[in-house]
């Protein structure tokens, strides 16, 4: 029934346009165990850095009236451990794995990619120049088109696989940064990372998150993503991966109609671990109901 529905991304054909967003699915291993990867075209891993990072002190998650704030701080075991333990297990995933890479310096990015190139498991990479939750790097890289281009070109030099650059909505121009990523040789851009958000307890004058601000994700972000995906798609020729606010099949179709090549689902996995299957099924039903 859904045979005609195919999405091509990085020269590979998929029966779903859904990617599981970085940070919300680990390395896909827990979801695989439960059989919840059905419907996902690929999993994008938790950020991997050169050295292990223990992450930010708790609380790391605070729910606001209209969505979630997180301050995980790129907690990960580091690229050595990822290569040794996680990637061999991820070889069994029923879908490809894209490794999200973060760094504290510009040089960290090619250094991590060089190591990851030792493994046949990654299908590609997502370069995170936009984490709002770390002191060094993060947004600071993504705010400058020059640095985005430099990081993209350094990654291009060492990577045999395609990569996307995940941009920040918080500083600078997302369109200029996307053009810079394309100029540097990126094979896609991810539009975009979480929005800087904060909750304040007015009774105590204290923010629940230790770093005060965190990354805001919410179904309410959808129109912001739609706008950014639309204007970015007009400005670059590389695929645009939409990320932000997706929790219904209509959202996916809307973003695809705006020019997205693939659509990421993230925070909604906290609610529905089998969101990929559910959303894909709903989406196919919607498409079927509209076709002549």
């Amino acid at each position, binding site marked *: 029934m859904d045979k005609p529905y195919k999405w091509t991304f990085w020269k590979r054909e998929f029966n779903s346009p859904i990617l599981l967003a970085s*940070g*919300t*699915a*680990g390395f896909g291993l*827990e*979801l695989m165990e*439960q059989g919840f990867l059905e419907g996902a075209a690929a999993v994008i891993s*938790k950020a991997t850095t050169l050295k292990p990072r*223990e*992450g930010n*002190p*708790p*609380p*790391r*998650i*605070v*729910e606001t*009236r*209209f*969505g*979630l704030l*997180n301050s*995980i701080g790129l*907690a990960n075991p580091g690229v050595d451990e990822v290569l040794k333990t996680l990637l061999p297990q991820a070889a069994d995933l029923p879908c490809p794995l894209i490794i999200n890479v973060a760094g504290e310096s510009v040089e960290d990015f090619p250094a991590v990619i060089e190591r990851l190139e030792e493994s046949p498991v990654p299908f590609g990479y997502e370069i995170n120049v936009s984490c709002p939750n770390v002191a060094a790097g993060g947004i600071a890289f993504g705010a400058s088109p020059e640095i985005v281009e430099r990081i993209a070109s350094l990654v291009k030099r060492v990577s045999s696989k395609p990569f996307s650059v995940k941009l920040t909505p918080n500083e600078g121009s997302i369109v200029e940064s996307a053009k810079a990523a394309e100029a540097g040789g990126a094979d896609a851009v991810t539009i975009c990372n979480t929005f800087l958000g904060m909750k304040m307890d007015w009774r105590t004058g204290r923010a*629940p998150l230790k770093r005060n601000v965190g990354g805001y994700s*919410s*179904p*309410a972000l959808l129109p912001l993503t739609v706008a950014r995906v639309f204007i970015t798609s007009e400005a670059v020729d590389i695929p645009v991966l939409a990320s932000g606010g997706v*929790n219904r099949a209509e959202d996916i179709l809307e973003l695809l109609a705006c020019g997205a090549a693939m659509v990421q689902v993230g*925070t*909604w*996995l*906290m*609610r529905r*671990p089998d969101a990929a299957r559910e959303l894909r099924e709903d989406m196919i039903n919607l498409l079927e109901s509209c076709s002549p």
Partner: protein
Amino acid sequence: MPLSFISEAEPGRFLQLEVSQGSFPVTRRPFTISSVAGNSVDIIFEAVGRGTEILAETKEGRSLRLLGPLGCGYRLNSGKWLLIGGGLGAAGFPGLAAGIDCDQVLLGASSRGKLLTIPGARTVAITEDGSSGTKGLVTDLLGSILWDSYGGIALCGPVPMMKAVIEAIPVKARANVQISAEAMMGCGWGACEGCSVPKAGGGFLKCCSDGPVFPADSIDWERWEGIH
């Protein structure tokens, strides 16, 4: 409730309920499995925030999506057990008490209304306002405890209460203490790194998949603030 759920609902494990029908709150809410009987499961909760308020208003007979049982429960050591609970921290004790040789339960709460009943277990209660049992804190009940006589000690409550109890336990007996932790939680199945609890010796444990029940000595009590 499917039988597979019931058979895996060991004491100390938890479930996540989708409390909202709409988009908000986005995340599910985690609850300790209080007890299981036949093909039903009990949870005990207090309406303290938006998620639990919605749940409290949920009409009888409504279906809710549920994920679980999740996490690691108590190691069911042989020998007699002592259970120490503060307020709603004792929510998991009915199921635990039924699965072990429970000698006694010590319960502390702010007032009578917040004191739980643990069916079939010898219980000594204390309340901060004296509305049930003596007036005081649960630590006031620890003076005459023969710590070495217990094969297992379960402890659950607010973090400051658990810290005070552990300090009152002789160092030798602390290795027998298992605590049930609570954290603001995202996925509930080990992926998002949201529900971290400071680990002894550095780093963090995941409340949802490493716990929620931990050996007390695996936690860095200095760094752990719990939920405010």
